[in-house]
């Protein structure tokens, strides 16, 4: 259960939320997109709900639709006609390195490819705010690094604000402008926040070699460890 989380995501900002399991990180994302109501408090959105997109940990593509139909669905559900939607879908699949895979069903794609289709699906809607709930946790290291590079580049190019929930500090630091740390639940709250002194645009893989990376990692890690140790 999450209690008292105030955080803000500025225009074009990449913000990460890290914290122990059960602190309510996912619930917060679900509240922002409107899948669940906060018991108390409010969510203030300066962007319309239709401008918010969410990427879950599992790709949750419709298994009976091909990759391009899955991507186009995000557009047709918002009133785009099928023809133009499919054109957009092909364009986004190509941007995510999946040209030629549009006619495959999710079952016939690898985990990384499915994740890319899910990304194309949310990005094709041109959201202003992108929420991501541990989106890359299920991928193996290399696939994951490559996809994160692509996400960083696309988010920069499209000037999308991002709120990322993750367990992975490296991922958080290498991608974010700002990191919020949640305390141990129950009654979790935002306990600390850290600006990351790394310049943007940046390559999230090479960001790990930046001089400021290790000290920040060390600091967040020790704060996070302290939170986890406070487990009741």
């Amino acid at each position, binding site marked *: 259960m999450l209690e008292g989380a105030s955080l803000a995501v500025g225009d074009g900002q990449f913000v990460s939320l890290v914290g122990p399991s059960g602190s309510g990180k996912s619930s917060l994302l679900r509240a922002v*997109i409107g*899948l669940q109501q906060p018991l108390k408090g409010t969510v203030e959105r300066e962007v319309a709900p*239709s401008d918010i*997109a*969410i990427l*879950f940990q*599992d790709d*949750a*593509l*419709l*298994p*009976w*639709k*091909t990759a391009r139909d899955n991507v186009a*669905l*995000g557009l047709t*559900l*918002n009133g785009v006609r099928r023809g133009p939607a499919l054109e957009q879908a092909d364009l986004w699949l190509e941007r995510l390195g999946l040209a030629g895979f549009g006619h495959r*069903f*999710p*079952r016939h794609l690898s985990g990384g490819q499915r994740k890319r289709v899910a990304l194309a*699906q*949310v990005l094709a*809607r041109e959201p202003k705010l992108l929420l991501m709930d541990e989106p890359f946790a299920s991928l193996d290291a290399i696939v994951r690094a490559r996809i994160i590079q692509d996400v960083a580049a696309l988010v920069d190019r499209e000037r999308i604000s991002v709120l990322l929930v993750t367990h992975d500090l490296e991922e958080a630091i290498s991608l974010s402008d700002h990191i919020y740390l949640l305390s141990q639940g129950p009654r979790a709250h935002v306990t600390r926040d850290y600006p990351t002194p790394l310049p943007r645009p940046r390559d999230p893989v090479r960001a790990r070699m930046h001089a400021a990376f290790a000290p920040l990692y060390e600091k967040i890690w020790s704060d996070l460890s302290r939170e986890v140790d406070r487990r009741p």
Partner: protein
Amino acid sequence: MSPRFVWARQLAALAVLLVIWETAGRAGLLNPLYAPSPSQIGAALVDLFGSGRIWTHLEATFTAALLGLALGIVAGIVLGVLGALVPLVAELLEPVMTLFNAIPRVILAPLFVIWLGIGIASKVALAFILVAVLIFFTVFTGIRQVDRRLVERVVTLGGGRWALVRHVYLPSVAAWVLGNLKVAVGFAFTGACVGEFVAASRGLGYLLSFAQSTFNSALMLAIILLIMVVVLVIFALAGRLEKYLLRWN
């Protein structure tokens, strides 16, 4: 042994069995009253088709089975969806369906004959009740198990109620029904044949009971063989349909 020629070995074994059977029959080791030889069964089969009298029976059974199948699938889907969406319907329907599911539904055959006569209606009814209960449970339990993640996915992409029905619920229901299509086809033919066996003037089931009453083993085995082939062909067709429509799976 190479796994590639399994079917060849199976066929060879069948041929050997048939040769032994035929030889034993001709040697007088088998009583043709009980165990007619393959050639006698074949002759009965040829006679059925040669005389042309088989067609009316095939037509009767097919009509009853396919009508019962179609009606049963439609009713099963409608009731299953209603049951899953309207709590009152579920409350009233589930105990009845559970009861129907628990009993061997073919025991209703004599009752349907009394109610609906010895014509095709009683056979359709039996095939229908066999299929409808099966499909009802498939859909009813299926809808409750629709993947929540897919629902949330469509909702967060901006989809409303109708979008959920169209993009999540309908395809899920179709997948479950198709997954049970072969079983349903088998049920439909069981219903039609048993119904005809109980009381009818046409149909493969009627031919079976006729063969029984005249102690004609060759005819009976010929009809059993024919029903097997018919159902296998329909199974294959249903399998093709399933494979095409569920090609995403």
